[in-house]
């Protein structure tokens, strides 16, 4: 369920790191908590953020949830397919439902992220 090669934040984002770039999404646990996603508000390519900053939000029928980026980064690409099919976040949260691709500008905060086992313990607690 939770890919072993992803890193996870306490705010229920996942990060798939590939060199100095990474893909970011929300976890299956997060999408279940939110319910059906109907709208995703995302940053533009080129915007830069510090670790822990809010980069956008996800609206479900019943709730709104902020998206945080766990590392300092520049946005490379937002997942444009979510404009028309936001439900992809529910259907495939760890795959096609990714939110943004980023270039990591300061990897220091990566060490604070959890591995799959630690994240599963986190959501079970």
């Amino acid at each position, binding site marked *: 369920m939770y890919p072993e090669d992803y890193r996870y934040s306490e705010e229920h984002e996942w990060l798939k790191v590939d060199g100095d770039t990474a893909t970011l999404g929300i976890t299956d646990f997060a999408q279940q908590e939110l*319910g*059906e996603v109907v709208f995703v*508000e995302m940053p533009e390519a080129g915007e830069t953020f510090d670790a822990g900053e809010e980069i956008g939000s996800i609206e479900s029928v019943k709730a709104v949830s902020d998206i945080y980026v766990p590392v300092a980064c520049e946005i490379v690409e937002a997942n444009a397919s979510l404009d028309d099919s936001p439900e992809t976040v529910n259907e495939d949260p760890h795959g096609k439902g990714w939110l943004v691709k980023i270039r990591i500008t300061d990897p220091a905060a990566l060490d604070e992220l959890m591995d799959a086992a630690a994240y599963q313990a986190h959501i079970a607690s």
Partner: protein
Amino acid sequence: MADAGDSRHTPLYDQHLRAGAKMVDFAGWVMPVRYGSEIEEHHAVRRAAGLFDVSHMGEVRVRGDGALEFLQSLTPNDVTKLRPGRAHYSGLLTEQGTYVDDLLVYMLAENDYLVVVNAANVEVDYGWMVSRRNSSCRIDDHSDKYALLALQGPKAPEILSRLTDVDLATIKYYRFIDGAEIAGMRCLLSRTGYTGELGFELYLPPEDAPSMWQALLEAGADDGLVPCGLSARDTLRLEAGMALYGHEIDRETTPYEAGLGWVVKLASGDFVGRDALVRQRDEGVGRKLVGFEMLGKGIARQSYEVLHDGEAVGTVCSGTWSPTFDKALGTAYVPPTLAEVGTEIEIQIRKRTVAAKVVDLPFYRRS
């Protein structure tokens, strides 16, 4: 985590868990928010039927000599117009004419009424009633004596008819049969609901609730009947323009402001809040409840600011994604000058100002 603290369980708690419901804490109860897709549950009610557990609602029995006079003195609708087997929508108001709660009054028999109130307000309402008792009537909190199921949707009569000999067509809107036999169990069967669809509500002893729940789901399985959670209940009631306590109505708002003036029968004699409402009728309201739809992207939520020409003019009461209309809708209080249909407003959605426009309430009317 669903079972936080000392929140109460309805008699159907185990059924909800077995059905895979996501449970949330609501008004001191652990309630199903959705079983699978809340959007599919919503569509099921509009197109076929849905079954809701709303056993968290409170029931207060008012009976004995003076029960009629007492309720007449406490609520704005005209209780003398009720007959056994009829119910009406009303409220408890403060001296300022604002809502303590909204409620249904069922007339069971002469001087015998069942008052159905919101789960979050049961204790407040009960205390409010007891402290204002002006006759020898008895007031009892009977919330524990009732489970409440709501069967809602165009297929509801057909589904129910498989389980009863009652001629359902004879039960008009806001009428009920006390002691109707459904699936071999006795209940108070009422043609009421909170979805804007044709439907029924069943008040029954808690111990019968699991069997009734099962019987209804089985009887309706081929018609597309599904269990529905609080999330669908909220999107359905909002589309239907029905007020929710804590959103459209509260201790700051009056029936006139909320578009519920039809509940107020000033000619029915004195009742708590009447003087303030007479004044407001004569002077006019300072703000009005309106419906709006979002023109730009985003979903308005409760307490977001409403702007007009960049100036703050009001507050959002409820906002949601509407599965029926496939767009974001909401309700808000605005000055009467901005309440006209078509008026362009903006909603402050966190850091963004998003265009919206005033539209007619209700958003949805059953055809």
